[in-house]
C-alpha cells in the first residue's frame, strides 16, 4: 500500500510514454497529433536509410566508447591517488567534483567559450610565448612534434598546428568530435572517480594485510587482490557512464548543435531534430528507440554484476 503511489506514478510517467514511443514509431504521426496511420516498421527502415542517421549512430558509439575509455583510465589513477588522506584533500576533491555538480548545459557553455573560433584560450596557450621576457617557449612546437610521430601510424592523419591559423575546434569535423569526447569525459570523470573511490575504500583492511603477509606487493597485489575485489563496482560505474553519455543530448546540442554539416549528430540530437524541429514525431521516436537495445543490455549486465557483489 505504501509503494502503490510511487509505482503508479512511475508506470504512468515512464511506462506509458515508453509504450507511446513504441506506438508512435510505428505510425506516421506528426506534430500536433498523437495518432497516425499504422505504418509498421516503415519508420525504422526509412530512418536507417538516411546518411545522417548512420552518422548519428556511429557518433553515439564512438563518443561513448572513447570518452568512457578516458574516464576509466583517469578514474582508476585518480581514485588510487585520493585513497589515502593528505593535506588539502577536501579542497582538491571539491575541485575534482565541480564538473559533475555543475549543470551540464551551463558548463558546456564554458567549453563553447574555451573552444571559441577567435578567442580560444586553448589556442592562445598553444601559439604564444609562454616564458616571460621572450623565453621563446611555444607549446605548439612539442605538440607538433608529437603529432608528427602519430602521423607515422597507419590510418591516422593528425595534421599539425599552424600558429598563424590555429585550430577551429568546433568548426572542423575531426576536432569537433574530439571536443565532444573531451567534454563528455570531463563531466563523467568525477562521477566515476567517486564511485571507484567508494569501491576501493570498501576493501577491508584485513584483506590488504593478508595479501601483504603472503608477500603480494605492488602490481601483483593490484592484479590478484585489488582488481578482482573492485571490478564489479568499477563495472557498475562504467555502465552508468555509458548510459549517461549515450543518452545525453545536452553536450552536443550546446557545443556543436550537430554541426559542422551534421557531422557530429548523435542519436538523441537527431531524434530531437527529426521529432521536434522537423515535426516527424513517428520518425523521431524511431530514432530514439534505436537506443533501447543498448539500454536493455546494460540493464541486464547491471543486474548480473549487482548480484555478483551481493554474493561476494
Amino acid at each position, binding site marked *: 500500500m505504501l509503494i502503490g503511489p510511487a509505482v503508479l506514478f*512511475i508506470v504512468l*510517467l515512464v511506462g506509458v510514454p515508453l509504450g507511446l*514511443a513504441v506506438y508512435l514509431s510505428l505510425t506516421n504521426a506528426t506534430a500536433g497529433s498523437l495518432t497516425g496511420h499504422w505504418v509498421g516498421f516503415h519508420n525504422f527502415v526509412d530512418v536507417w536509410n538516411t546518411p545522417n542517421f548512420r552518422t548519428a549512430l556511429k557518433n553515439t558509439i564512438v563518443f561513448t566508447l572513447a570518452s568512457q575509455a578516458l574516464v576509466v583510465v583517469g578514474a582508476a589513477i585518480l581514485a588510487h591517488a585520493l585513497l589515502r588522506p*593528505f593535506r588539502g584533500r577536501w579542497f582538491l576533491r*571539491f575541485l575534482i567534483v565541480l*564538473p559533475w555538480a555543475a549543470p551540464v*548545459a551551463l558548463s558546456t557553455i564554458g567549453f563553447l567559450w574555451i573552444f571559441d573560433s577567435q578567442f580560444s584560450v586553448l589556442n592562445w596557450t598553444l601559439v604564444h610565448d609562454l616564458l616571460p621576457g621572450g623565453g621563446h617557449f611555444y607549446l605548439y612546437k612539442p605538440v607538433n612534434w608529437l603529432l608528427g610521430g602519430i602521423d607515422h601510424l597507419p590510418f591516422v592523419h593528425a595534421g599539425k598546428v599552424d600558429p598563424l591559423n590555429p585550430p577551429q575546434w568546433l568548426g572542423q569535423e575531426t576536432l569537433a568530435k574530439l571536443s565532444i569526447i573531451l567534454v563528455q569525459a570531463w563531466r563523467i570523470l568525477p562521477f566515476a572517480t567517486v564511485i571507484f573511490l567508494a569501491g576501493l575504500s570498501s576493501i577491508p583492511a584485513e584483506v590488504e594485510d593478508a595479501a601483504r603477509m603472503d608477500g603480494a606487493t605492488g602490481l601483483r597485489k593490484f592484479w590478484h587482490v585489488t582488481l578482482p575485489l573492485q571490478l564489479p563496482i568499477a563495472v557498475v560505474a562504467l555502465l552508468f557512464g555509458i548510459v549517461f553519455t549515450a543518452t545525453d543530448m545536452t553536450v552536443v546540442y550546446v557545443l556543436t548543435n550537430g554541426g559542422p554539416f551534421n557531422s557530429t549528430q548523435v542519436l538523441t540530437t537527431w531524434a530531437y531534430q527529426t521529432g521536434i524541429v522537423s515535426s516527424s514525431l513517428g520518425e523521431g521516436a524511431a530514432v530514439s528507440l534505436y537506443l533501447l537495445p543498448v539500454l536493455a543490455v546494460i540493464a541486464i549486465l547491471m543486474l548480473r554484476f549487482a548480484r555478483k557483489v551481493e554474493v561476494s
Partner: protein
Amino acid sequence: MTWSAIRSHGLSYLIVGPFAIVLAFPFYWMVTTALKTNGDLYNLANVPFKFTTTKGDPEGHSPTLRHISFIFHQTHYVRWLENTVFVGALVVVITLVLALPAGYALARLSGRLGQSVGVGIFLTYLVPPTLLFLPLSRVISKLGLEDRLWSLVLVYPSFTVPFSVWLLMGFFRTIPLELEDAAMMDGCSRLTALWRVIFPISLPGILTVVIFTFSLCVNDFVYAISFISISSNRTLSVGVPTDLIRGDVFFWQSLMAATLIPSILLALLYNSFLNRFIEGFTGGAFR
C-alpha cells in the same frame, strides 16, 4: 614526517594536482572571463589569464562587475532562477511524498516480491529522458500544459522518484527493526512510529534526497527545451544557452557569470553530501 611519507604524499599531489587543474580549469576561466571588460577580453594582445586595463577603455577598469549586474537587470535571469527554484521545490515535495513511504516499505518488505519491485524501480532510472521526451511532449500539449512550468513539475518526478526510492531504501535498511517495534510497543501506531521515530533519525538520508532531487531538476535540459518555448517561463539550464545567446552574438562575460552562480552553489552542496550520494549508486544496491 618520514621520508617515505613525504614521498607517498608527494606522489598523491603529483597525480591529483594535474587532474584537479584540468577538471577545474573551465571554472577558473569562467571567473576570469566574467570580470573582464570588452576592451580587455577581445584584445588578442593581452595575456588572457590576467586582467589588463587599457587607457581610454569606455568600460573603465578591468576587472569589472558591470557584466554580472547586466544579467540581473537586463535579462530574464532572475526570472529563470525563480522558475528553477519553484519547479525544484515542488518536485522535491512530490518526490518525498512518493518516495519516503515506498522506500520504507521496500526496505521492510522481505522476499521475492519486494526485491523485484525494488529492482524494477531501479531499472526505470535507466530509461533516459531522451527516449521519453517525444511522446511526453505530445501528452503535455494534450493536457494544455505547453509552455507552463507545471509541465516540468509533473514530469520531473519520473526520474527523481526512482532514484530517491532506491537511495532511501538503502538508508532505511540500516535502521534496526527493533526501534520501531519498541515504539509500537509503547502504544504508537505504525504510522506514528514512522513519523516520530524513523523519519527523524533518517533526516540525513532525507536531506540527501532533497539535494539530489533539486540538482537533478536544475540539470534537466531535454524536457525543459521541448516543453517550454516562452523565454520568461524557462529554467536556468535552457534559458541561459538559448536566450542569452542572441543569434550569433555572445555576451561572453554575462554568459560565464550566469553559468558560474548556480554551478558553484550546487558544487558546494554536492561536496557536503557526496558520501551519501555514492551509496545511492553502490551501497543501496548491494547491501
